């Protein structure tokens, strides 16, 4: 579906892309096994670097039995470090969103990754509970690369496939949280067998995630491009991309109530996922008297479900969006996340090991799919402040993790199973606000599109620019995006505005 000649950006010759693109040069197909520049290459670079950050952030939990003896940690020290590891990213994600809007995802994420790599290297020389908490805190900042991943995918892929692209990139990155539970003990074992003693072997083991993180940042900088047409800086200098002001980006982001609702609901799918990553191994170990490495394998399987569940959520969002438009995306998100809450309640109530494992896996599928579905909606909330909205939502996820761990899993007020059940109830309540999300041009869960004057995609996205800015032509990319987002009306209405597209636009 190549549309040339509609481009209002001045080009000397139309650039050739390996994938079919729309008027913004965003790919309209998603080909998983291609590494074609710039679209699929950006995809692979972003998920691998995000995966590396997850591996680093959760590298300590599987090695805690050794670390806690070496650093003389108490259970409170460990709990606090766990909360610290997810709390740093709360503000880092919001800041990253703005940085993406202003500097581009490539520089923003590579900077963050290289600036947090020292924290991972310094984990090797931690010597007390304080230094351990600090390195986990600063390493956790790297989880903000999630936002640059989603921003980058939203910049590279068009509306029909943006949910899939976001879902696969996010899911395969989150996979790092599960993979690390298998990788770190393996690396530790190898180093110890070579001849190092336990208290030295775990320290050397941390160089692996640190180096992986550093190298992935280099790959990002060398091979990545911010936009299909090039990097921000070069496009800025050539006049092809306008540079926006932070205060405007910030204002239009925080005044959009949809961003806040999504931030809250994301706290109860992704936040819950992070909480479970931190507590589930201990839960199985204590409640069912398993060996530590068995409990660890079960814990890993929760995170590993991300390989299909989050991408699945993104694909469901795109499929439902194609047929029913934005209203379908919102309904799908609400249904899947609420069901996740139901299974969470069940998980807190079942008493046998087999049933617990089955319920946990079903719960993980719904919970992570909801994460994918959320980022099928986020790209459409704002065009000007896409990064900030992505950052707010992502940050909201971490806030949910901090809150949930503080309320239900700190100290001994609730047993872990009661905590899990109460968390499920909270998920259901905090998902209800999705019912209040309303787009004038597409409708919401319970209301159709508006029949008053502000009822087109152009009206919605151009309302973020004032007349001065429009005169300067700053709004042109939003205009193109508005045109491309018309598919969110759903198939019936969509056929009134453009010819029916016969070829499938999602190809994985």
């Amino acid at each position, binding site marked *: 579906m190549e549309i040339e000649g509609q481009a209002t950006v001045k080009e000397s010759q139309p650039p050739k892309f390996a994938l079919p693109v729309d008027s913004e040069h965003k790919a309209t197909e998603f080909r998983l096994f291609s590494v074609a520049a710039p679209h699929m290459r950006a995809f692979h670079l972003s998920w691998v670097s995000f995966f590396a950050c997850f591996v680093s952030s959760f590298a300590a939990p599987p090695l805690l*039995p050794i670390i*806690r*003896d*070496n650093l*003389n940690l*108490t*259970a*409170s020290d460990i709990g606090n470090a766990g909360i610290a590891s997810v709390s740093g990213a709360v503000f880092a994600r919001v800041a990253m969103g703005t940085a993406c809007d202003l500097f581009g995802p490539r*520089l923003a994420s*590579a*900077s963050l990754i*290289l*600036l947090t*790599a*020292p924290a991972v*290297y*310094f984990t*090797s*020389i931690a*010597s007390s509970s304080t230094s351990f908490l600090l390195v986990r805190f600063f390493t956790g900042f790297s989880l903000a690369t999630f936002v640059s991943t989603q921003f980058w995918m939203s910049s590279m892929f068009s509306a029909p496939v943006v949910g899939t692209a976001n879902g696969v990139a996010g899911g395969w990155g989150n996979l790092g949280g599960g993979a690390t539970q298998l990788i770190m003990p393996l690396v530790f074992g190898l180093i110890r067998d070579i001849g190092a*003693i*336990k*208290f*030295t072997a*775990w*320290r*050397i083991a941390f*160089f692996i995630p*640190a*180096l992986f993180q*550093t190298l992935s*940042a*280099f790959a990002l*900088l060398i091979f990545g491009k911010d936009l299909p047409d090039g*990097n921000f*800086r*070069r496009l800025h*200098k*050539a006049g092809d991309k306008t540079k926006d002001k932070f205060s405007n980006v910030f204002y239009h982001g925080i005044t959009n109530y949809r961003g806040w609702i999504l931030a809250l609901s994301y706290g109860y799918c992704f936040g819950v996922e992070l909480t479970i990553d931190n507590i589930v191994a201990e839960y199985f170990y*204590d409640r069912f008297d398993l060996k530590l490495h068995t409990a660890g394998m079960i814990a890993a399987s929760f995170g590993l479900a991300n390989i299909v569940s989050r991408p699945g959520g993104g694909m469901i969002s795109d499929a439902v969006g194609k047929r029913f438009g934005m209203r379908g995306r919102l309904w799908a998100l609400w249904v899947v996340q609420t069901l996740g809450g139901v299974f969470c309640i069940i998980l807190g109530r079942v008493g046998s090991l087999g049933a617990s494992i089955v319920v946990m896996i079903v719960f993980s599928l719904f919970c992570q799919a909801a994460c994918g579905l959320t980022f099928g909606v986020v790209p459409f909330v704002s065009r000007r402040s896409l990064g900030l909205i992505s950052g707010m939502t992502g940050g909201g996820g971490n806030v949910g993790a901090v809150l949930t761990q503080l309320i239900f899993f700190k100290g*001994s007020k609730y*047993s872990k199973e009661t905590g899990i059940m109460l968390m499920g109830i909270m998920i259901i309540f905090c998902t209800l606000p999705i019912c209040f999300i309303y787009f004038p041009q597409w409708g919401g869960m319970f209301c159709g599109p508006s029949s008053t004057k502000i009822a087109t995609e152009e009206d919605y996205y151009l309302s973020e620019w004032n007349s001065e800015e429009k005169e300067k032509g700053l709004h042109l990319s939003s205009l193109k995006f508005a045109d491309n987002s018309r598919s969110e009306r759903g198939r019936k209405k969509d056929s009134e505005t453009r010819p029916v597209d016969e070829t499938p636009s999602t190809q994985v």
Partner: protein
Amino acid sequence: MAARALLLASLVLSCFLFPCHGTVLLSSLQRTLEVTASPTSGQVLKGGVDKITVTWGLNQTLAAGTDSTYKTIKVKLCYAPISQVDRGWRKTVDDLKKDRTCQNDIVARPYSPAKSTAQSEWTVERDVPTATYFIRAYAYDADEKEVAYGQTTDAQKTTNLFQVQAISGRHATMDICSICFSVFSVVSLFGFFYNEKRKAKRSQ
């Protein structure tokens, strides 16, 4: 916490109510062994460097034949209560299969009633964590079940405790590598920025 205590209590109670095969409770064992060790009360030993000399033997005031079932003696390094606070992985549980008090083995020797006392010298291993300890010896029968014990401290585990200062596991090489790689990461980032700026200027 309450759930754990309840679980523990029900475990202990259930073992009194039903004949439990294979479950040995510390409270059911007799303290027939005399154990002494070289560290004095409050002494701090260095991991990997200092040595402990442990002497154990049957309490001579007991009747003859008490030790007829003893086949092996295992001597272990055990955590004192102060090192178990807020550390559930070192919890004391009466059921010896679940007990996590004594996690470091010192020595195991076969036992014969003819030569009932024995001694062993042990260098504190390099993977022993920093903590406060006492020493306990278990006597096992032919089925590898505990039948008696002895320890260097009293029943409340408050007297005659010593400490171990563990090695850090760090090496100067590791410190230098960490710092070098960290500096390299940050410097290379600024190197890339500079390069970008140059390329952008050139393409103008």
